[in-house]
């Protein structure tokens, strides 16, 4: 059952269309990743879903009810982890957790007990009484995450929760998130890290310029580029015009072209050796040809015309 449904969400800021008719669903026990570069509309989408912003059009349905018909009920179900740290640096990790638990409606006793549980789960017990300003970046991120979990939300919105931390701390947080999913929590996860989307998310939506360009499992998205065959040609390609090459566009789709590199996908189920032969016969000076499996980055490249890392 879909715990969250975003239906045709749109939001403009002046002339800028920050989110443009974005629709997706997140089910219990599922991680739905919104993948896109900075400024793609991921954070605005999260803001629309959690009610920080009202959409110009479209609906957010949480657990079968329209968000805006009873926002407080929807908020009780969801926990939000903002991209920026939203904790009090002067307070300790435990005090932060307890405070946000109290604001979420827990009693003093429940907040204290839950804070203890989360400090344990987030491996922060030893430092729980220290002021947050003395924590490392990774520890602060864990407290930031914990504050959203105090009231045991069934739906968790994570806005780039691992930005700016070291690989070890990131791995810890990702493991913690996997455990949450195992408990049936539905997660909307925004990121611009390909590896995170590939390894963590059950389904991925690719977003750019406010529009959801494609969505599906990793395999679904890779399929869009053909039957798992991608060729990278290196050579002098500045003057090359693939559209003018006889029969080329019927057999290959150009994914990306630069002065030194041409990335193409073979159309249909074809023999790689045959494809290589055809590519080497192209009317350009080819220095090298590589065959590779399409990655999420290639899908992104094909959809947006630019790399996610740009």
């Amino acid at each position, binding site marked *: 059952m879909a715990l969250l449904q975003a239906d045709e969400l749109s939001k403009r800021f002046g002339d800028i269309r920050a989110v443009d008719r974005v629709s997706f669903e997140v089910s219990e026990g599922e991680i739905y990743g919104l993948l896109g570069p900075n400024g793609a509309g991921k954070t605005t989408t999260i*803001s629309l879903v959690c009610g*920080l912003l009202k959409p110009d059009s479209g609906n957010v349905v949480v657990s079968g009810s329209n968000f805006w018909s009873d926002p407080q009920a929807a908020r009780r179900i969801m*926990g939000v982890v903002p991209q920026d740290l*939203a904790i009090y640096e*002067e307070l300790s990790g435990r005090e932060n957790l307890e405070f946000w638990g109290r604001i979420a409606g827990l009693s003093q006793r429940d907040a204290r007990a839950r804070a203890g549980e989360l400090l344990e789960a987030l491996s922060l017990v030893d430092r729980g009484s220290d002021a947050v300003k003395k924590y490392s970046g990774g520890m602060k991120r864990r407290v930031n995450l914990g504050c959203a979990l105090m009231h045991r939300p069934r739906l968790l919105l994570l806005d780039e929760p691992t930005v700016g931390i070291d690989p070890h701390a990131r791995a810890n947080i990702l493991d913690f998130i996997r455990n949450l999913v195992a408990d049936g929590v539905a997660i909307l996860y925004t990121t611009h890290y390909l590896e995170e989307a590939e390894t963590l998310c059950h389904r991925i939506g690719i977003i750019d310029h406010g529009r959801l360009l494609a969505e599906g499992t990793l395999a679904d998205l890779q399929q869009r580029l053909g039957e798992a065959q991608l060729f990278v040609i290196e050579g002098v390609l500045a003057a090359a015009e693939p559209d003018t090459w006889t029969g080329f566009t019927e057999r290959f789709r150009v994914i990306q072209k630069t002065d030194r590199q041409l990335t193409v996908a073979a159309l249909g189920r074809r023999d790689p050796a045959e494809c290589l032969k055809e590519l080497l016969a192209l009317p350009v000076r080819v220095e090298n040809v590589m065959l590779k499996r399409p990655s999420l980055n290639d899908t992104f490249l094909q959809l947006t015309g630019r790399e996610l890392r740009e």
Partner: protein
Amino acid sequence: MNHLRTLLAKDLQRAWRNPVPWLVSIAVPLLITGLIGLAFSPQTRGGGLGRITFALVDEDDSPFTRLIRGGLTGQEAGKSLDVHLLARDEALRRIANNELAAVVIIPKKFTKDYLRGGKPIVLELVKNPAQAIHPAVVEEGLGLLVTALNAIAHTLGGDLAEWEAILEGHGKLDFQAMSRLLQRTGDHLAPAKAYLSPPLVSYQGETRANTSGPAQAWSMFAFLLVGMGAMFLLFMADNAMRDLYRELRFHTLERFQTLHEGLLVLIAGKATFAVAIVLVGAVILFGGGALVFQFAWKRPLALVVLVLTYALFAAGFMGLLAALAGKERRADILNNVIIMVVSLAGGCMFPPQQLPAFMRDHVTPLLPTAWFAGAARALQEDGAYLGWVGAAGKLAFFGAVLLVLATALFRRRLHRGVRA
């Protein structure tokens, strides 16, 4: 109500963990009060301006200038003046080293030129600006001396030439000539007898006996502390209310919004925090100040009510200003300036009587800072003063109105600025 309590506890905890800004707001008014009070309060015995150290360079060195020197170094003058008789170079060296407040130089031939008349004589005064008011006092004293010398010259006229001859007697005084001259000087002064003895104009000094004991006496410290407190409590309220912008900057406001519908509780919580922190500050300032400066508040209960209503006003006023500013940095600058202005115009820094007439008559009476400082000072001067009730009522009313306006405006501003 639960949320309000939780928010207040959190803010007080944060203030406790990061006390420096609050301590500064408490320490500075105490320090200023102490410094000004110690300098000018009549209660600081032996204090006041202290002894003024200056040098007298007597390049004339005549019996007449020795007479002046004797007057300056006498026992009575010695209580307030520390006069060093030095050579010019040494005196100028010492003033350059900031060891002297001023140097007064009596030029060569001073006596001769003065007694002969007709030739302008100039006494030199070198002042040291680093010694605050002391050089100005020396200058005033020198002005008095010059006036007196001119008056003597006008009165005695031609006799002065004969005095010169006697004083220039090559080390040997002609007492017979001096006697004749004294006789004649006496004759000159005879017509003025009716004016001089007894003097036509005089004054009678009276020092009131302190009947109410030292604790009940008028205290300059209490007077100053009320004004400084009124100003710095505004700074504290400002710091507390501007914390709403910090909540925005630290994204905690967004998190609050994801858990709770509306911002009213958060803003009300911050206003409660502002009132609470101003009250805590006032207790330390006025209670601690009374202990440190050894005076007693005549009507402590009335003062508490005044402080309570002033805290309400301070929270509302600074909240509204911060909300109007719209941005944290702008509020930071603007609010500080406005606090200084309303404090100055409200008579917190100077006694209101010393403000320019237009401000004193038309602006000061409209300012809540003046209502508070005026009522608190009046209570301290006259324990039976009842005007404080009206002042407290006005402060409470305006405080409540300003708080409502600030809340509405902040709500709009923060709502507009919120994004995940």
